[in-house]
């Protein structure tokens, strides 16, 4: 579950809820509800802002929350690639499709980071 993971990471960094909310450009109320587990699958956009505020990669936050299989399909930047591979993946269970797409996303991101360096 994402809520307790965000809370633990926030506390590890000595941040108050309000401080993290400000850094991530979300309201304190939203963050409070998220940490209490009232939002089970926040959007990629919100989670990437929270990950940035916590200074960890978004993928790491998804993995820590055991939501890795949701990462690729949630990432709008990856949508065209996911669309290309859809015919080979559509009849798979959602979890397996998500895990494969997330792995493809990781590989392609590493390639682009390698190419940029």
């Amino acid at each position, binding site marked *: 579950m994402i809520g307790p993971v965000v809370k633990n990471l926030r506390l590890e960094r000595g941040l108050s809820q309000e401080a993290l909310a400000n850094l991530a450009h979300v309201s304190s109320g939203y963050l409070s509800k998220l940490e209490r587990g009232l939002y089970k699958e926040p959007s990629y956009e919100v989670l990437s802002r929270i990950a940035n505020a916590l200074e960890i990669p978004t993928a790491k936050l998804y993995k820590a929350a055991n939501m890795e299989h949701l990462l690729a399909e949630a990432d709008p930047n990856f949508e065209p690639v996911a669309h290309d*591979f859809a015919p*080979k*993946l559509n009849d*798979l*269970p959602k*979890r*397996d499709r998500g*895990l*494969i797409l997330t*792995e*493809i996303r990781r*590989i*392609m991101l590493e*390639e682009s980071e390698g190419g940029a360096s």
Partner: protein
Amino acid sequence: MSTINDDLLDTIEFLVNRHRLHTRLPVELGPLLDRFEIRKHNFTPMTMGFAFVRPKSMHIGINKNLKIDEQRMAIAHEAAHIIANQAGQLFVCRTSDWSRDRDEREAQLIAACLLIPLRVVAENYYPGAAPQLARALKVPADLIELRWSFARVHGDI
């Protein structure tokens, strides 16, 4: 019964000899797999694994919930898609439907040829022996049956 074309069989034989894959039992594919990045994933029982080919790298993902002999077969099967130079960039394999698709059948036959030396089935196979051979070679019993059938059809035995 499916088969493999002679060029591909020649490639498999070359790889087996080059990496001395069949000198020890059970067969270890390690040297052949050095250029592949292999990871295990928490797939559902429906998915065996996948292979993903990039211009400068080759990736295999298998279901970590499979039994060890099935994992060995899955890795060989996924590598086989790439060894066979099959068309496509992504190969996704279910646990049960490989026999319905030509590329899947070909990959499974290659996996059998890589993991099961011909001499083993030629010298030791008899009806009912597959489970025992499978335990010795750390592969699923149906892969032994497939290797035997292929050797018969191909005229090796």
